[in-house]
């Protein structure tokens, strides 16, 4: 619309059209910003609701609890965000948490803390490479490959420990799960660290941009010279590394290598990523969204416990939140 058109009296109807267009655009923009603010608004509503309905919710001890409890999920979800933006997903994360924690516990009892930590992380890297290799080079479905490693890693965790809990871990190690800095638990500090590092990589490096490109359109990414296989593989390695790191923190937190932990953790991590607004189709999303999703799930679980909601209803509530998030995502995509 040119100025001439707008000022000319003979084109009056066009002015109306322009005004209508502007109005429609305004509403659209408004709705879009409503979209962006929907989850934060829900989160805020949840916080307010819990503050008024439970005297224990807004206490330092409880907020500290929430941070501590979400830290494991947050670290796993950080890695998961990379894989999902890259267009895949990783079902093995929960089992990797268990395997790394157990293997690290066994190794550090025999060879000392540094070796234990190294073993835990190496296992994560190895499983991630295995997943990534089969998915990128052989073009296999992430579903079947990571489901396979889910079962395998769980089996390995149980077999190397004989199904027993590996206990009596030295204090130098367990401090990563039980210590605190000025009242803030180490696991929370670790998750903030992992999160910030992940955010910088994803947002401000060429590698991060390439992940988005590969997740958005693999062929276009390949044609523009990106080594697609390498990027996909890297996302899976990052995800498993995060999971094994979470496994170390969890082992520190319960002061034992426990081969049975982390069942369904991967699903909660994927849910946290999607809840935040990152699409499972890949190519878009951010860690800030994931953080919001993680905190939402953490606060919800904590709040349901504090309100003494019967367990079956807790399940219903969590399920409804997941489905609602998916619905909002679908509405957003349809607009």
């Amino acid at each position, binding site marked *: 619309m040119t100025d001439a058109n707008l000022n000319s009296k003979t084109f009056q109807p066009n002015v109306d059209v322009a005004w209508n267009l502007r109005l429609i655009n305004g509403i659209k923009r408004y709705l879009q910003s409503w979209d962006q603010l929907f989850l934060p608004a*829900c989160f805020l509503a949840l916080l307010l*609701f819990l503050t008024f*309905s*439970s005297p*224990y919710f807004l*206490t330092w*001890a*409880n907020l500290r*609890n929430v941070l*501590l*409890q979400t830290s*494991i999920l947050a670290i796993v979800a950080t890695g998961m965000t990379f894989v999902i933006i890259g267009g895949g997903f990783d079902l093995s994360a929960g089992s990797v948490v268990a395997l790394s924690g157990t293997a690290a516990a066994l190794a550090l009892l025999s060879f000392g803390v540094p070796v234990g930590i190294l073993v835990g992380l190496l296992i994560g890297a190895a499983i991630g490479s295995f997943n990534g290799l089969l998915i990128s080079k052989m073009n296999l479905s992430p579903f079947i490959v990571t489901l396979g490693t889910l079962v395998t890693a769980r089996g390995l965790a*149980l077999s190397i*420990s*004989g*199904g*027993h*809990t590996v*206990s*009596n871990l030295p204090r130098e190690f367990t401090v990563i799960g*039980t210590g605190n800095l000025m009242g803030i638990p180490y696991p929370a500090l670790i998750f903030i660290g992992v999160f910030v590092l992940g955010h910088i990589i994803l947002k401000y490096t060429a590698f991060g941009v390439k992940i988005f490109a590969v997740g958005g359109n693999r062929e276009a990414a390949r044609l523009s010279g990106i080594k697609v296989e390498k990027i996909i593989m890297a996302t899976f390695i990052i995800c498993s590394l995060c999971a094994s790191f979470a496994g170390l923190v*969890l082992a520190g*937190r*319960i*002061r*034992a290598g*426990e*081969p*049975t*932990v*982390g*069942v*369904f953790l991967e699903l909660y991590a994927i849910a946290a990523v999607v809840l935040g607004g990152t699409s499972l189709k890949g190519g878009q999303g951010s860690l800030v969204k994931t953080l919001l999703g993680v905190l939402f799930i953490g606060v919800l*679980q*904590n709040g*349901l*416990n*504090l*309100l*003494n*909601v*019967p*367990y*079956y*209803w*807790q399940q*219903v*509530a969590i399920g*409804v939140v997941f489905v*609602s998030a998916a*619905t*909002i995502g679908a*509405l957003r995509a*349809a607009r």
Partner: protein
Amino acid sequence: MNWKKIAKVLLCVTLLLMLLVTYGCGQKATAPTPASGKQYTVGLSLASATNPFYMAMEKGIKQKAEELGINIRTVIAEEDVGRQVSGIEDLIVAKVDAILVSPISVDGLKVSYEAAKEAGIPAISIARSIANPELEAAFVGLDWYESGSVIGKWIADEIGGKGKVAMLAGPAGAYMVLRMTEAIKDVLAEHPGIEIVAELYSTHTKENGLRLAEDVLVANPDVDVIYCNNDELALGAVEAVEAAGRLGKVKVTGFNAVPGAVQSVREGRMAMTISLRPESWGKMAMEVVKNVLEGKHEGYLVEIDTLVVDYKNIAGLKTEDLQ
């Protein structure tokens, strides 16, 4: 555009309803019940909300708590150590007066017991215990080794000290499983004619019982007894035995005496199970908790009464005997 609006409205309504339900539940559960003396709130951390055994135990605990005028706050761990640790943290934050826990892991829960101790909250174990009795104010339970021995002896008697036994031993790593398996093996080892042909580990579900028993029956068609670490496994195993057409020839033993298992014994399908009388167990535990709260508890293990239920005595048993 219309369906989107409808979806949005539905979404809002659902969320509102959920909030109301949540709020209602919270209100009801935290409403103070009039009672003489101090109003106690006890935190309850159970391993599972779908296992009939824990459901019956929870029922007994809640009944007794109501009788005693004690509030109960429940968190469920779904057999996940991390979740149980988190749940107990929530109980500590909610400043409960005591915590009744059935710990999933012998070692992994130590950190929670320590946290409770630090907060000055006594922790009482029920059904399962941890490796550090000094952190537990009491343990209301039974000696798993003893229970395993009872089953082992029953099996040996039943097959006259000769035959093939398969073991569906339960979830690998659980303390109860380790002790019971050990006891049964010790008893069976006294009979050179008895051979253990399989020792399989799995979680306590009917599906696992069915699947593993099928495998056992294929590999050892002449197996005499399938020992199952709990009734869910046993009920699955009975299905497999029936499908193989060997009902009555292969004796399946369970543990816990859940209603389905008792029915199965009554119908002559399952051969034997042991009733731990979970409801009485829960009630007994609340008595112990009350004593701990009032500083009247002494000692560590409070042993419960169990009862063998088999095809020989089932006719004479009443429902109350099993609760």
